[in-house]
């Protein structure tokens, strides 16, 4: 991981970065935890016979695709927690923008994700805007694509995130 300064942006646009295999396989327990958190009773996720008949066996909710890459809060032999959208944090650091929000998020779904799958992800910086001022503060918008593949090499999803990194009005710039 390395900070992305303003002069680094052009060379990184369209480049694949941070390819990594998920820290753990897609698991049924987390599927239930997520469905429970939003009271999603879709029988695909709760009834094995329905899942077999409709999707050829159990699948994960498609919108969970990024969940499989959020690292454990702690793991042995790791000094700092990993960050799932590292380019976002590289931009914050390199551009000196201490705060950030995500404003826009598109997910396109390809092959279903199934319990036991081991997914791979990679991040691609697509664009960085000129400086803008919003009600949150002054900063820049950026778009990052995240591609997900399963262990067979099938594309399972592509996410595009629009982030806004900013400095709150009245706060001092870090030297």
């Amino acid at each position: 991981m390395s900070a992305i300064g303003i002069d680094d942006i052009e060379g990184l646009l369209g480049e694949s970065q941070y390819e990594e295999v998920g820290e753990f396989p897609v698991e049924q327990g987390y599927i239930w935890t997520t469905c429970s958190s939003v009271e999603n009773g879709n029988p695909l996720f709760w009834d094995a016979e329905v899942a077999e008949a409709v999707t050829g066996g159990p699948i994960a909710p498609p919108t969970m695709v990024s969940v499989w890459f959020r690292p454990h809060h702690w793991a042995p032999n790791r000094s700092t927690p990993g960050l799932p959208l590292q380019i976002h944090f590289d931009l914050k650091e390199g551009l000196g923008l201490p705060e950030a929000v995500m404003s826009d998020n598109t997910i396109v779904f390809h092959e279903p994700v199934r319990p036991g799958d081991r997914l791979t992800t990679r991040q691609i910086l697509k664009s960085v805007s000129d400086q803008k001022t919003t009600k949150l503060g002054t900063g820049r918008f950026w778009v990052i694509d995240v591609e997900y593949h399963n262990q067979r090499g099938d594309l399972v999803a592509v996410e595009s995130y629009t982030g806004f990194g900013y400095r709150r009005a009245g706060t001092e710039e870090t030297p």
Partner: protein
Amino acid sequence: MTTPTLLHGNVQAGQELPELAYPVTATTIVLGALAARDWRPMHHDKDFAVNRNGTQDIFLNTPNLASWFERYITDWTGPFGRLQRVTFRMKGSIFPGDTMVFRGAVTDSGIDAVGCGWVALDIAVSVDGDTKTSCTARVALPTAVDDNPWSRSGDRWTP
């Protein structure tokens, strides 16, 4: 025997999805943060959310909101509905004490070049009439009782 409950031919542009209203508590926010493995403090630590982020309280995290939208869509389609794409635009946060209300309507429908039926949806989640996140979605629906969008893969699935 599992059969589709909503067929592509029974859906027209302008049709509205049933409304879903849900009272949000701190538990809703924290359950969602843990479910999405989002350990960042603004989704469970009110002091951090208020004094560091400048928000009124902890708030729902975006990946969990995606799970809410998915649930809202598939409550309507049933298990044969298969999401093709979703776009979220976050306008404001959802806090404990809010009642979030999901409303949606069909904006378009068609059959793609490989024969897959799809519908486009405009959905919004609002609190007290203010839209907090809007969502456009495209979801595949069976074109007949013996059609199943989940059976499509490779060149036959063009989301």
